[in-house]
């Protein structure tokens, strides 16, 4: 479903992502791992259209996404979360999730001014509450976003993405900053998301989690692809052990 070909991105003289290629099969959980500064988040930004690549291309369902911004990619069924959380702190938690359903709503100014979206909005409010319940932040359904602790914000982002009913979901370090119990819950959540038919691409530091849920793992180091394969293959790869796992 997703194919990345020779993707590169340079910042000044630094090649943050350097000729990376991989492909993601529909319905799988695909993880990208690597030490800090390996280019994981940059890779995500390139794939999700937040950044433009210096070279190479990204294909979604065989079509090049060159020149498409995140909003255009959302229309094609892609969604993502952010390592440092990008939520609208000027809105309620539930409104953030409702914003996730933007493309499914009548978002013309006229419909809004005339109040013609009220019925649909009411249904959407309930749906947003359900999604919040599903990701485990149901008790914040009536809270303002600024009142949520960090762990809840990370889940709220996932609920917001799910509201858009994506086919492909990129999760940027969903377990960062979470304790062990929370990480376990997030792992289960990702598993259930994948089981519902959404293809998941994951950037994560928590090795246990990655090894647990990934069908396929890509290892980056200094912007380059170091290894690729199943959890078992990657675990045994001597280069990976030397560069990453063995460094501890």
């Amino acid at each position, binding site marked *: 479903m997703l194919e990345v070909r020779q993707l590169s991105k340079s910042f000044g003289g630094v090649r943050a992502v350097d000729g990376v290629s991989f492909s993601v099969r529909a319905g799988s959980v695909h993880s990208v791992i690597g030490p800090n500064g390996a280019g994981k988040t940059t890779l995500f930004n390139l794939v*999700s259209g*937040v950044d433009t690549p210096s070279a190479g291309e990204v294909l979604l369902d065989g079509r090049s996404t060159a020149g498409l*911004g*995140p*909003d255009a990619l*959302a*229309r094609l069924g892609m*969604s*993502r979360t*952010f390592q440092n959380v*990008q*939520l*609208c*702190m*000027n*809105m309620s938690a539930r*409104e*953030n999730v*409702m*914003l*996730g*359903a*933007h*493309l499914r*709503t*009548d*978002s*013309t*100014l006229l*419909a*809004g*001014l*005339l*109040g013609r*979206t*009220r019925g649909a*909005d*009411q249904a959407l*409010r309930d749906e947003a509450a359900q999604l919040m319940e599903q990701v485990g932040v149901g008790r914040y359904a009536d809270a303002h976003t600024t009142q949520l602790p960090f762990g809840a914000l990370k889940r709220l982002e996932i609920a*917001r*993405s799910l509201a*858009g009913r994506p086919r492909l979901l990129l999760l940027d370090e969903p377990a960062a900053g979470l304790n062990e119990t929370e990480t376990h819950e997030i792992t289960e959540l990702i598993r259930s998301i994948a089981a519902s038919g959404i293809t998941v691409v994951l950037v994560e530091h928590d090795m246990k989690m990655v090894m647990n849920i990934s069908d396929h793992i890509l290892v980056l180091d200094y912007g380059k692809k170091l290894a690729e394969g199943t959890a078992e293959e990657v675990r045994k790869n001597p280069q990976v052990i030397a560069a990453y796992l063995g460094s501890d």
Partner: protein
Amino acid sequence: MKGLVRPSQLVALAILLLLPFAMRNNFMMDVAVRVLLAAVAAVGLNLLMGFAGQVSIGHAAFIALGAYGSGIATSRFGWPPVLALVAAAAGASVVAWLIAKPILRLKGHSLTMATLGLGVIANIVLINEVAWTGGPDGMPVPPLQAGGLALTSVGQWYALAAAVLVLAIAGSLNLYDSPAGRALRGLNGSEVAARVMGVDVASFKVRAFVLSAFLAAVSGSLTAHYLSFVSPSMASFTHSVELATMVVLGGMASTYGAVLGAVVLTVLPQLLGGLQGYEMMLFGLILMLTMIFLPKGLVPSLEDRLRRGVRGADDA
């Protein structure tokens, strides 16, 4: 959830209906009409500044476009005032669209700079095109009339201005809780998040800009007819700053805040009297004090306090 009308709208309507009975003289009614007309523009500017977070410091230009559009079309071409008003508002919307369309593709504060430029240009054109605009002296504008009925008394004007403001408030409140309103507020909160959720950010900013220009022009047209006179000071930088101050003082994204801002900034200079030349200082001072003590603005700060008060009572 709610019926077609919110409780807050009923309260606002009641205030608007009862207010004339508290007015002791025509001077107070006159100030009230000015407040209502200014509030229409402020509610519109709030859609751009409060909802979408895009600052305009040239919005008086759109008020002037409406005012002079109405003035020139009625007095020089003999158009019916209602047609002139609609045409002027449509014209201002087109101008806003032409400005915003290319500029909002860029990032940062380019829109703010462009609106500043627009305000300056509008002011210069109005002063120099004497044959059309009457130059620095301004020009007279015939009374507002439709089908043989002319609005003349201040009471009639109060009714019309109140009706227009009620419509603007209803539209703004509806928009706030609609998908389009969430898209606008969302791109204000986190542009990248809004984009990832599929919001065409540039397009929404353009739409908010056009809508706010439309309301400014309607306010300007009505003001021109009400005062029977237009002058270039309508497009002045001072007037633009005054409008922006109304929104900031009342509270970003708060519809009633914009109305309250219009009340304070229209009534205060009247109370202080003879501020000639020092308005700018007053607006600047209000803006500064708001930023320091009530960064969220009057209405949102009051709402916070009330909510906290209610919760405190529950705990007790």
